[in-house]
């Protein structure tokens, strides 16, 4: 029968409920969209550094929205006020929602097909040993680096920076390739360096 099971049409987006919906997105669709994003930016810039900066800005917009949405959905309206709290929020909740179960909350729209399934989990959250204000998220196979020859980790670094900045923890976030013995594919590491004021506030809060 036509129309059976069709979702109710809402006149305005503000009337639509904020429910989770189906949580899988087609990997091919995301790959297509992301490759178009990269190619579009490539036509606008002269060098790789500028391209990475643009990808980071695109990720920043995603990060700001992901923070609000996930805190509302997953954490029952509790905010993170401590450094380790926000880092573990990123490392577990954000990664699980964005990459763990193949859910890509991308800024433009949410695709609702399910053609591909793969699981991975961000490997570990480590403290950079040289400086007090540096932390690293290290991942064996960053999804966005499966496509293309150069480092699209800048997009993910932008997402992390968006989450941190919106939550009140300004930081410089960069993505690096780290070659590992015995594996032909280098690990991607997201390096997070917090601003002075964050450390001062953390010290003050005890």
């Amino acid at each position: 029968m036509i129309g059976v099971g069709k979702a109710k049409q809402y006149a305005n987006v503000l009337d639509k409920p904020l429910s989770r919906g189906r949580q899988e997105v087609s990997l091919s669709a995301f790959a297509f969209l992301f490759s178009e994003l990269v190619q579009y930016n490539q036509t606008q810039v002269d060098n790789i550094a500028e391209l990475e900066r643009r990808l980071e800005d695109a990720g920043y917009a995603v990060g700001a929205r992901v923070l609000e949405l996930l805190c509302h959905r997953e954490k029952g309206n509790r905010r993170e006020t401590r450094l380790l709290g926000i880092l573990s929020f990123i490392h577990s909740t954000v990664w699980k929602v964005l990459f763990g179960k193949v859910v890509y909350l991308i800024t433009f729209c949410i695709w609702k097909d399910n053609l591909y399934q793969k699981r991975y989990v961000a490997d570990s959250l480590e403290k950079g040993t040289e400086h007090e204000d540096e932390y690293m998220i290290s991942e064996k196979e960053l999804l966005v680096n499966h496509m293309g020859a150069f480092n699209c980790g800048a997009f993910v670094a932008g997402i992390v920076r968006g989450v941190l900045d919106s939550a009140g923890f300004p930081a410089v976030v960069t993505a690096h390739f780290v070659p590992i013995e015995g594996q032909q594919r280098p690990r991607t590491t997201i390096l997070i360096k917090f601003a002075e004021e964050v450390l001062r506030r953390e010290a003050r809060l005890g």
Partner: protein
Amino acid sequence: MTSTACFVIVSRNDIPIYEAEVGSAPKKEEIAYQHQFVLHAALDIVQDLAWTTSAMFLKGVDRFNDLVVSVYVTAGHTRLMLLHDSRNEDGIKSFFQEVHELYIKILLNPLYLPGSRITSSHFDTKVRALARKYL
């Protein structure tokens, strides 16, 4: 029974992105300016208080004559501030939660720049309807 209520949404950078007088009292220009002034003055207190707790609803943070300022801080440090004279805390909390959901829906729009003014008339209508319902 007339009630005074002034509702403001202030972004992370301390810029108001939405303002509305939602009380049922008759609107007067001078009083409206005074309300906005009181709300802005309360921002300092909110800033300190926000880092001491992980809850989103901070109850009465400041007083002015017989008006109370209640604040709800979102994860992205956007503050929903209400200046009111009623004591109905549950109603105010529900009001904040509903407006928070509306705000998230606005924020999810990729063409909306976070921190810019909310110009949607539909949003305005809904906020006023919620205010009539809960306050």
